[in-house]
């Protein structure tokens, strides 16, 4: 081998034929899209501290649990009881326009082991088992919801970003793309690759989508907030076309230490993503609901390292022109010792899946009984929570 170091992995055009990129499959709009309403689900991975995002400053016990994190500094009052973390300050115009809202003291049915991985598994599969042990082959609740949507097609639901989302995995077809990925093949190379993949369904399906989608979006750049913004902007592009349901993830919420520095970084990404959705969706923002959910909340008391540990009850962030915003939905459990879950966590007073279920029902006309039977098994949806305007 006599190749020089300079030649190792030099940047070249892909297979030398980038000008000849021609998607084998172009998505065609043939049937009417299933309604005009749009839903964006953001998974906040790492367990967002709802008590710091939306501080219950009206609760007399709050500041006692959180000597450094529980002050009114760095937060602005929303309704006399809750104050919003300043890192979401850019969203205040939305709050005033009733396009931003929150649900507090909620959780999935997951209890006690407080594992991120099981917690996220339960959050995305929508299952009902408190011990949260992952089961192989579980589909995501949003995928099962697609089955209840008449005329749902490949483009109806879109998973955005490099990682596969369990939320959308399952039997129903959906689309996935990472804005910034690109693939340019000569028609001949593309045909041969299609032939090679024909006997391997996993590779065949992914390659088909990659060939269809490549070159439809600009690349990604910049820091984390920029990356979240790009995911949101791409989601908005798709939602302006045939897509009605989009999902992506934002990480960085596992604030075991230095929370006053680390949480604002994650909130900055969420804020940038919501504003990019609003900007990108234009008039369609009025028909849009954004729900940002997390696997569980964090301990009520701050720990010895200026952070918080894995807890139970937490909060959901809502945005969009379609929501009944400008308010915090909560049956507040209180924060005195006897009110806490296992003497340490915010007691969840409601199942977050009720809010997800009623949003699906109000946005897409899915029957509550069908949602209880197949999307959120074991859930009693009871009366409408009223988060959609």
């Amino acid at each position: 081998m006599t190749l020089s170091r300079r030649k190792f992995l030099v940047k070249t055009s892909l297979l030398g034929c980038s000008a000849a990129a021609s998607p084998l499959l172009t998505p065609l709009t043939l049937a009417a899209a299933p309604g005009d309403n749009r839903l964006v689900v953001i998974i906040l991975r790492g367990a967002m501290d709802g008590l710091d995002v939306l501080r219950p400053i009206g609760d007399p016990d709050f500041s006692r649990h959180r000597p450094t994190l529980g002050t009114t500094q760095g937060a602005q009052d929303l309704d006399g009881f809750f104050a919003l973390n300043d890192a979401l300050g850019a969203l205040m115009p939305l709050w005033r326009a009733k396009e931003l809202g929150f649900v507090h003291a909620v959780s999935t049915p997951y209890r006690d082991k407080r594992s991120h991985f099981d917690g996220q598994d339960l959050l995305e599969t929508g299952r009902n088992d408190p011990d949260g042990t992952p089961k192989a082959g579980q589909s995501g609740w949003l995928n099962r919801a697609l089955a209840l949507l008449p005329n749902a097609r490949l483009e109806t639901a879109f998973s955005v970003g490099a990682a596969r989302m369990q939320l959308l995995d399952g039997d129903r077809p959906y689309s996935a793309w990472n804005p910034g990925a690109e693939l340019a093949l000569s028609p001949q190379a593309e045909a041969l690759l299609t032939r090679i993949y024909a006997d391997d369904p996993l590779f065949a399906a992914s390659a088909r989508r990659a060939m269809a989608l490549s070159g439809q979006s600009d690349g990604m750049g910049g820091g984390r907030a920029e990356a979240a913004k790009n995911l949101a902007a791409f989601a908005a592009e798709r939602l302006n076309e045939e897509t009605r349901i989009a999902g992506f993830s934002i990480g960085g919420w596992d604030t075991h230490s230095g929370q006053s520095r680390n949480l604002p970084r994650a909130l900055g990404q969420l804020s940038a993503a919501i504003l990019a959705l609003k900007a990108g969706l234009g008039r369609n923002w009025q028909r849009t609901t954004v729900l940002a959910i997390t696997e569980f909340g964090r301990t009520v008391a701050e720990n010895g390292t200026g952070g918080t540990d894995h807890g139970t009850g937490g909060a959901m962030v809502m945005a969009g022109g379609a929501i009944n915003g400008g308010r915090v939905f909560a049956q507040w459990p209180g924060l005195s010792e006897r009110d806490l879950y296992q003497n340490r966590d915010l007691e969840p007073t409601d199942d977050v899946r009720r809010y997800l279920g009623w949003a699906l029902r109000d946005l897409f006309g899915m029957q509550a009984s069908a949602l209880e039977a197949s999307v959120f098994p074991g859930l009693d949806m009871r009366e409408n929570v009223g988060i959609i305007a």
Partner: protein
Amino acid sequence: MPTRPEITQAARFEYGIRPDQPRFPGSLMAQLSGPDPLDDTMPVTRTAARMAELQKLRAARADAPMLQQAKRALRQQASTDMMRILARMVRNPRGFRERLFAFWIDHFTVSPNRANEVFLLAAYFEDAIRAHIGGSFADMLKAAITHPSMLFYLDQSASVGPGSPVGQRRSRGLNENLAREVLELHTLGVDGPYTQADIRQFAELLTGIGIGPEGMRFVPNRAEPGAESILGLSYGGGGAQLADILGFLDDLAIMPATARHLAQKLAVHFIGPAPPPDLVADMAAAYLATGGALPALYEVLTQHPSARAALFPKVRPPFEYIATALRALDVDADIIAGATAREANRLGRQLTAMGQKPFRPGGPDGWPEAAESWITPPQLAARISWAGQLARTYAKEQDPRMLLSALLGNTAPAALSFSVRGAESKSVGVALLLASPALMRR
């Protein structure tokens, strides 16, 4: 031309075939005996040396230009270390050893956030993991859990016993992150026989472990006083001492739930998502019978009939895939080891696009195992693009038809043979071969 058993073994347990390299003689287990010559010919930084450099960095804090220069040098070394890890995989005829290395660094995941953690990472891999691949699990567990990298990553360095002198004086407290992940991920498994109370008690037992100038340091003044009761057993109670913590880890390493968890995880990694239950049970039994010897697990794993099946349900994750592709093209490992920081960064961006930001998994549970996690449309697009670039760089010295036969012998699927032969140029032919499931599955 390689035989079918050789191709199967290279796919399932190694980094594929390297055409210019004779097969390592003997069984897979033979690859584990004796020292690995590559540890000396392609060395990476060790913990003691790196801790000393981090000390110097701290000393240079006041001198901004010098600090910048020292940091730049450390970044360069960290990048060189990472490329050497890749180069070892590309060169090593003991491929099973390298695959086990990748498995165990993932089992004991450290995903650095801060600069100091990035600088220490390769030393952690070397001293805590690589040194123990063929030894006892208890030794690896103790080395990993007490290494500064792990102590930083899972916040143990900041955890203080609330009743300890330091905890009382500075009103600092417990952080249960490390205790939880050791039980959930490293030993018993999430289904294991432990409760929140065990986590809390274990977190109290762990207090006192921290980081000093030379590495892990036990500070009795930070340790929670009194005995801890974990999983029904009692530890400590005398004066606070490191030996109590190590004693618990020794016990934890040979609990039946730990044996099952390790056996299941290895079997899922090397065989498939639903490994035969008899295989997992036999592995766990052999492990317990030897008092926790890792080779006992490997021996049962590699000799089970399912290890020889020519069915490949798994997909190589991106880092493993690029090592396999570089071997397939006989790329000189010295070129990789000598890559510039710019080249290393570009490779890092390409791996990120494939879904695996190098050595930075999203959480302490490491990278996903499922094939579906690695072949989404954007990830596959990134693999195909990279394969195309690699093929263009190296295709001149390759005849795709010869390469096909050197890598896959008589086992190449008909559609792959047809396509590689029918490609419009040598580089497209090589690219198609590299982008095929035959090179990505195992």
